[in-house]
């Protein structure tokens, strides 16, 4: 019954990696390491050549992955080959979804994604207004479509987004693009407050870097944390230094544990706060 289940018991840790970064085989290892480290949902990026919503960290991951031969078909193979027991979400840009198969619309892509076990989509360049066809295809194949609530999203837009999002809602912690930051933005709390009434889980992303961040975000009311750039940084560093994939995988697993632990601490504080 959808991705909500991953948020049911405790705050969810939702890591992101670009599939195929820096190459197909290593990337399989890395994703599996995240699962071992406690991921509750994994967002797998299918790289698009013009990632307008990404900061430089993820943009470079996208370039590495494309250079290593990633494509939609390879992506589906990748997903099939993964040995993880965690729901998978595909994060990509609309043109890849639209062109797949017929080049006539999202349906073939969604069908194929469902077939390999993808459970939902995040599509950063697809606002609610343009999402009709993809929403329909997702409904047909039983997949979730996750929308992003930005700090600037208010009023009517917010309402229409509430109607459309399913699985969870991606709360963008700050203005801008993806990328690890050192602070927690006030905008996060305000955004969470604005959507407090929504009955989907609220996962906060954009800039979460450490267990402490995770803790603060969850204690501020988030149902989960989404972490991308902080993990991609580890992949990038390993790649640059020529470190063996298993070492990098271990580091990723460690980072995952730190983040998950932080989220859990945050949940305790929240419980305490609620209890008081």
């Amino acid at each position, binding site marked *: 019954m959808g991705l909500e289940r991953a948020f049911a018991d405790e705050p969810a840790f939702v890591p992101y990696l670009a599939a195929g970064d820096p190459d197909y085989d290593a990337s399989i290892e890395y994703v599996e390491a995240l699962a071992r480290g406690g991921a509750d949902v994994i967002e797998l990026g299918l790289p698009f*050549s*013009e990632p307008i*919503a990404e900061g430089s960290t993820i943009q470079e991951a996208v370039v590495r992955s494309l250079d290593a031969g990633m494509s939609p078909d390879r992506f589906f193979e990748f997903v099939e080959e993964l040995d993880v027991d965690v729901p998978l979400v595909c994060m990509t*840009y609309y043109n890849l979804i639209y062109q797949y198969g017929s080049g006539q619309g999202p349906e073939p892509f969604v069908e194929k994604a469902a077939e390999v076990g993808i459970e939902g989509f995040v599509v950063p360049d697809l*606002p609610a207004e343009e999402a009709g066809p993809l929403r329909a295809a997702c409904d047909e194949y039983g997949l979730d479509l996750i929308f*992003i609530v930005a700090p600037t999203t208010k009023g009517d837009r917010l309402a229409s*987004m509430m109607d459309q999002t399913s699985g969870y809602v991606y709360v963008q912690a700050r*203005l801008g693009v993806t990328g690890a930051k050192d602070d927690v933005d006030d905008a996060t709390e305000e955004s969470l407050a604005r959507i407090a009434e929504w009955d989907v889980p609220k996962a906060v992303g954009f800039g979460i870097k450490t267990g402490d961040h995770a803790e603060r975000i969850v204690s501020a009311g988030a149902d989960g944390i989404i972490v991308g750039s902080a993990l991609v940084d580890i992949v990038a560093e390993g790649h640059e230094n020529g470190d063996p994939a298993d070492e990098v995988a271990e580091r990723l697993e460690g980072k995952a544990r730190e983040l998950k632990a932080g989220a859990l601490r945050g949940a305790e504080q929240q419980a305490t706060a609620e209890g008081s």
Partner: protein
Amino acid sequence: MSSESKFGDYGGQFVPEALMPAIEELTDAYERYVIDNEDGFMDEFRRRLAEFGGRPLPLQRADQLSARYDTEVYLKREDLLHGGAHKLNNALGQVLLAKYMGKERIIAETGAGQHGTATAMAAAHLDMPCEIYMGETDIARQRPNVFRMRINDAEVNPVTTGRGTLKEAISETMRDWATTVETTHYVIGSIVGPAPFPAMVRDFQSVISEEAREQIVEKTGGLPDAVLACAGGGSNTMGAFHHFVPDDDVDLYAVEAGGSSLSVDEEEGVAPNSASLSTGDEGVLHGARTKLLQDSDGQIMESHSVSAGLDYAGVGPELAHLVDEGRVTPVNVDDDTALEAFHRLSQDEGIIPALETAHAFGYLERVAGPATDDRAAEPRDEHHDDLGDTVIVNVSGRGDKDLETVIEETQKRDLDIAPDMSIFNEIGGGI
């Protein structure tokens, strides 16, 4: 004017959620100030376009070309606009709009540097801080334009990702905007991007055809048979076409960059051309559904043209729509023909055109030029081997920015028409 956000199935607003409120705010401002002339916005715009920009610009009969092609050739002289290209029509409109909206900062992307220089000039004129994103490769090959932006006190932010060209610069500017959207206006340089940009940029540029239509009627007593304009994103194109669109008897030709070949290298993701209207297919890029150069997966290709300003994998959604409707005919001209046309216009008319612009003249030559051996081999386009008795060509910009490129590319090719440049060897200093 109208604030279409879709043109048939094309257009729309495919942008990150964080930008949507800005885009709604902009749509609102566009409707109030541009369409409804609230607070006299359009009056001020037109006054500044006249005083600062130099409008109206002439529609000139081209004596030698008219003789060569045995047809009345008229030139719409956007090359005389302040800054040297039609780009200022749009840049001035948007920077002024940003001022009316209370924005405090301007950002823009640029490829050839023409839009960047136009924006920098408009921002200096209107006293707004300005930052321009430009690919590293483009910075290196368009140095004079980078100088001009810096001299107008705009920051130039080098974009190092990808191939370091326009496509990457647009993405990077969108990223900046997503971070600074509350205080900042993003001045898009062509009729591309999410709504309301395509319609708004077209409206600012439509002064071209507004003037040209009046001028041709005044000069010839009637409408032209055809209007030709080069098409990169398509802003000079729609600017030159807009007021002729309802005139069904006026044929509209959008001349794209055929580059070195119309075929593509799927493996490398490279199209050696920028002919998205002629050869691209539907997809979503930089906020809009339009015709694109993309591989079968939907990844955007690297486009190519000898003219940096046409070197873009997309095209304005309105043009894509008008092509599908049959109202606009997409044609293309390769690098060689464009270079030849560059030299022909320079020598025969004393107007050194931008390489972008030269493409439009290349098409004129191909269709109406004297028969040559080459041309006998490649048969003329069947349906338009006759442009009619009166043709307007939009001279979208001047070629000062292209001198080095032209000389280099001409030397590579050994074109008959090219002037001898050996004086530079005698005097020394190399090219």
